[in-house]
């Protein structure tokens, strides 16, 4: 069993006990524990279930590479799934639950998958798609969906706060082990601004655990001294609990600081995302120990050898009373010796190497540990916990020589430098034969804007394996980074470390070498996603030669740990199966972030009200005070309707339509785009932008125009007014103002840069109010100051002057078919003008109306709406707008495209009006259904509804839609499918439902 030891535990404070719960069980740990250490101290080795086979899973590692110990952490608004117990600092009141099991961790029904493992090999998902066809829908999909996903998604809004930091430094050092500390020191001493970050709460990395001796003192003391020196430097900033998440173009890096994970409920932000610009980046990210592939290597109690040592030394926790150590290198002997010193039993060291005479091996023998060389583990015994191992010859096929009882296995397959951050932005790797790992190739570093290398690795991340090599490499890296950032390094020598003689490791990718299929299908490569040696070999047999394809086919390395432990082992197995060398097969792509970062940190402060700025018209406050029901339009909020007490929104809309049609209504149209186009070539420019002729528009007159993109598709519309000889004012849709302004700038700057034209977006400079209805003129006359008679200001004319004392520009344009004036006043006068209108309008029963009434009235008149009748595939000709397309112009944007054979063709879906036979309202977006089916077995469709409303004016449903050859089919009755799978019959009619002759607007 795993338990707390009476001695050791350099990171814990035994004077401070902390209470926490795991699956509801109340447990105790110490301040300084990780959740994993505290669970082990309470003999909770079983912590979860694997993804596919629901195999029992125990704690495997002691750091961020942990694939198994993932828990749901916290509750309610602070619940977060997939948190690694190995990097979760224990705090008082922590609650954790295990994942991926039903009904309980100890007894899990899903474990039946384990018995079916033979039938769920690599790529079985993909195979289920194909054979047999019917099975996917009825058998496999429901089953896979039910079992998919680790952990539980939180249901409440996140209670915590997050923020972003920006930092600009000369040298960013990622990793606070001895290498990072030395690199930071060397760069700091050169005078560079240095930011040193470390993902753990403590500094120094592995060296103090491993008993390294630096400059004649224990590593622990050297770390303390160096930290002190760094803290004394004004140009050096240190941050722990902060991970280097990613390295990006031109020295950009993301840091993920877990500010308050260990003190929940404090007023600190929980996480900070640091957006760092560094001239140079030093990655001192260390190395990760690799598991060994032997049968049963996933049974709880099998752990990485360094992790076993970490738990003993750092937390005073022993993973087992009797631990068998299995290794292909010298380092694991340190674990054996460490356990022995702690008074625990090490029945055997199993070393695959035939002969080992290194000092560490001698020390182990002197300590009375039995060392079996040339041997391997044939099989681990046990199910939810290791009970023993079976010994075999590494060179053989797995015949059992002897069984050894134990309750833990410490394995070491060698070390892989953490090359992720080096690789994120293009750093390349080379294969190191001696250490059987990929390490950064300093000659092919990530490059910056001038082609210069901007990342340098330090210590084990470079492939250095002893403390002395690590320090020398880190010192050189720190100096090189400072030099590249423009500083002169000091001539201090790198610190010296006590020698650590060792024997070369022996690469072992399978144990034993000739293992049978039965053994290979129990050798785990990816512990979280359940990928085994046999799966990768199957993928190779089925023709997956690329490591990237094999990854996706087998899901190797696709779990939340992104294959930190599994990738190298997996690709070695693949290389062997393909008969190729490992460097030829290569690695999969390393992508940021290094470990998952919270969505909250990514969002930072951008949530709630400040997620997106809200644009408000000058009259916004009035609308709010008068009970507006809002509709979002671009970044604006517009009143959808103004419901009165006791009125539904729909009733309000109908009242607003009828009141406007019968009397007079008022609309806040301030969001309408207003772009002024000015200059000697302005007319010529607008002739290119609009499909119709704008250069011939007379001063004082307005014209409706259409704009297309170069694909010929309709992109915006609006009324253009000619202000003077070289000035036009272009109205755009509310959502399109910024886009159209940019569109104009783009053409002027990049195509017709010699044309003398200026454009300016004046949208927010003016409030614009539409006074609409039979009494509109009376209202304005009541306001006084300007002659707004038919003779002076005819339909499609505009004029400027004082209206009721306001500086007004009055346009006689109509989007409702009624007598209508749109009046622009300076934004600062907008609210006062609106209120003045409301006051004089009272005598005429004037009421404000919202966007829905506007939509209904335009639909009654058959006016199109960009975004309803258009969707980026519709040309003006489809909408019967030929009259707005100039035949005389040689060119306009979109003209060439509209001449393409499939555009210049009447055989298209075209705009018509639709009237249901029963007067009902057609569902929005529904399709006209024809006879028979298409090539895909779907119902034939030949049209769709683009706008559909109940018309209070006509007392029935009206709609517009695009129908195949529609205008030639007037009077035909067609049927539309509805969401409840019934049909509605509708007659094709003219899209103008109301006042076809346009008499009402022209009075």
């Amino acid at each position, binding site marked *: 069993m795993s338990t707390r030891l009476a001695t050791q535990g350099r990171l814990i404070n035994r004077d401070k006990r902390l209470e926490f719960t795991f699956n509801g069980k109340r447990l105790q740990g110490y301040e300084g524990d990780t959740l994993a250490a505290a669970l082990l101290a309470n003999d909770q080795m079983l912590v979860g279930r694997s993804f596919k086979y629901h195999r029992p899973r125990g704690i495997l590692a002691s750091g961020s590479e942990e694939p198994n110990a993932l828990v749901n952490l916290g509750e309610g608004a602070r619940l977060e799934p997939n948190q690694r117990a190995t990097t979760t600092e224990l705090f008082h009141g922590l609650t954790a639950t295990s994942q991926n099991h039903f009904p309980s961790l100890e007894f899990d029904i899903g474990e039946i998958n384990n018995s079916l493992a033979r039938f769920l090999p690599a790529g079985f998902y993909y195979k289920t798609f194909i054979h047999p066809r019917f099975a996917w829908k009825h058998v496999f999909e429901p089953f896979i969906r039910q079992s998919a996903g680790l952990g539980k998604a939180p249901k409440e809004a996140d209670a915590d706060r997050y923020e972003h930091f920006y930092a600009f430094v000369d040298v960013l050092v990622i990793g606070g082990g001895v290498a990072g500390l030395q690199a930071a020191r060397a760069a700091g001493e050169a005078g560079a601004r240095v930011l040193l970050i470390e993902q753990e709460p403590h500094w120094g990395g592995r060296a103090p655990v491993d008993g390294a001796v630096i400059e004649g003192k224990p590593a622990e003391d050297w770390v303390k001294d160096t930290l002190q020196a760094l803290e004394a430097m004004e140009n050096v900033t240190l941050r722990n609990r902060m991970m280097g998440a990613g390295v*990006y*173009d*031109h020295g*950009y890096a993301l840091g993920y600081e877990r500010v308050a994970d260990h003190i929940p409920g404090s007023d600190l932000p929980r996480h900070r995302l640091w957006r760092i*610009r560094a001239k140079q980046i030093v990655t001192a990210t260390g190395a990760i120990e690799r598991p060994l592939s032997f049968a049963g290597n996933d049974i709880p109690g099998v752990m990485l050898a360094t992790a076993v040592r970490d738990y003993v030394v750092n937390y005073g926790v022993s993973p087992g009373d009797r631990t068998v150590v299995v290794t292909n290198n010298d380092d694991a002997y340190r674990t054996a010796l460490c356990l022995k010193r702690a008074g625990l039993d090490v029945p055997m060291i199993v070393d695959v190497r035939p002969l080992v005479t290194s000092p560490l091996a001698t020390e182990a023998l002197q300590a009375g540990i039995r060392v079996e060389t040339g041997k391997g583990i044939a099989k681990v015994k046990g199910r939810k916990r290791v009970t023993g191992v079976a010994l075999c010859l590494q060179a053989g096929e797995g015949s059992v020589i002897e069984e050894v009882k134990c309750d833990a296995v410490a394995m070491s397959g060698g070390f892989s430098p953490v090359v992720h951050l080096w690789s994120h*932005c*293009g750093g390349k790797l080379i294969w190191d034969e001696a250490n059987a790992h990929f390490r950064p190739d300093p000659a092919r570093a*990530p*490059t*910056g*804007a*001038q*082609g210069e290398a901007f990342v340098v690795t330090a210590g084990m991340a470079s492939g250095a394996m002893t403390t002395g090599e690590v320090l020398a490499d880190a010192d050189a890296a720190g100096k090189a980074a400072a030099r590249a950032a423009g500083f002169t390094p000091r001539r201090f020598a790198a610190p010296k470390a006590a020698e650590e003689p060792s024997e070369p490791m022996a690469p072992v990718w399978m144990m034993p070498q000739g293992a049978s299929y039965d053994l290979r299908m129990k050798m785990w490569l990816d512990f979280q996603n359940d990928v085994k040696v046999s799966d990768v070999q199957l993928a190779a047999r089925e023709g997956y030669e690329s490591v990237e394809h094999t990854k996706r086919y087998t899901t190797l390395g696709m779990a939340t740990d992104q294959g930190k432990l599994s990738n190298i082992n997996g690709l070695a197995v693949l290389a062997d199966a393909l008969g190729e060398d490992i460097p030829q097969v290569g690695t999969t792509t390393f992508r940021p972030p290094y470990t998952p970062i919270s969505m909250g940190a990514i969002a930072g402060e951008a949530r709630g009200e400040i997620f997106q700025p809200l644009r408000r018209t000058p009259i916004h406050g009035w609308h709010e005070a008068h009970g507006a029901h809002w509709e979002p339009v671009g970044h604006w909020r517009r009143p959808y309707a103004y419901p009165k007490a006791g009125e539904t929104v729909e009733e309000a809309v109908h009242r607003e339509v009828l009141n406007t049609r019968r009397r007079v209504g008022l609309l806040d149209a301030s969001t309408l785009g207003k772009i002024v186009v000015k200059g000697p070539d302005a007319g010529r420019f607008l002739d290119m932008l609009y499909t119709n002729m704008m250069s011939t528009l007379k001063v004082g007159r307005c014209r409706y125009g259409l704009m297309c993109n*170069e*694909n010929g598709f309709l992109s915006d519309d609006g009324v253009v007014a000619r202000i003077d000889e070289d000035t036009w004012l272009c109205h755009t849709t509310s959502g399109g103002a910024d886009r159209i302004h*940019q569109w104009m*700038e*783009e053409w002027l*700057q*990049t*195509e017709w*840069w010699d044309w003398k034209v200026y454009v300016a977006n004046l949208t927010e400079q003016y409030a614009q109010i539409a006074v609409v209805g039979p009494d509109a003129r009376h209202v304005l006359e009541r306001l006084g100051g300007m002659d707004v008679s038919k003779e002076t200001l005819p339909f499609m004319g505009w004029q400027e002057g004082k209206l009721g004392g306001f500086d007004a520009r009055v346009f006689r344009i109509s989007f409702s078919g009624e007598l209508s004036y749109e009046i622009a006043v300076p934004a600062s006068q907008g609210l006062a003008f609106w209120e003045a209108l409301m006051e004089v309008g009272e005598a005429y029963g004037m009421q404000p109306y919202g966007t829905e009434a506007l939509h209904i009235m335009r639909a009654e008149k058959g006016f199109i709406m960009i975004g309803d009748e258009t969707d980026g595939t519709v040309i003006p000709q489809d909408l019967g707008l030929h009259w707005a397309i100039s035949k005389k112009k*040689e*060119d306009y944007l979109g*003209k*060439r*495209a509209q*001449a*393409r054979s499939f555009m210049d063709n009447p055989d298209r879906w075209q705009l018509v009006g639709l009237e249901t036979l029963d007067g009902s309202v057609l569902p929005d977006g529904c399709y006209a259904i024809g006879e028979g089916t298409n090539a895909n077995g779907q119902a034939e469709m030949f049209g769709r509804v683009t706008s559909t409303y109940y018309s209070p004016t006509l007392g029935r449903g009206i709609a517009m839609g695009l129908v195949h050859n529609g205008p030639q089919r007037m009077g035909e009755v067609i049927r539309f499918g509805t969401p409840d799978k019934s049909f509605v019959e509708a007659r094709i009619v003219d899209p103008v439902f109301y006042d076809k002759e346009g008499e009402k607007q022209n009075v």
Partner: protein
Amino acid sequence: MLILTCPYCGVTGEETEFAAGGEAHLKRFGPGSSDAEFESYLFARKNEKGVTFERWRHANGCGKWFHAARCTVTLEVFGTYKAQVTEPPKEILAAIRKRRPGWEPAA
């Protein structure tokens, strides 16, 4: 995230301050052009691996369009220049050749 310098206002800024606008130096084909010409103008892009000429706009700055010559493999930026040209200026070509001896623009 790239760092670029706007040749109009002189500001050196993060990529988020700019908006990418696709391949530079396209020739517009309008009415009268052949289907093949129009297709190549509208759809065919070089998408080169290596030296590339791109349009950028200083969207959260002075609003001007400009061009950047850069390498899509190494992320080197050879230079930025104003958009009112139909081909890369000589000094930009010289800057590219200095770091890519023998480089010739693709046809």
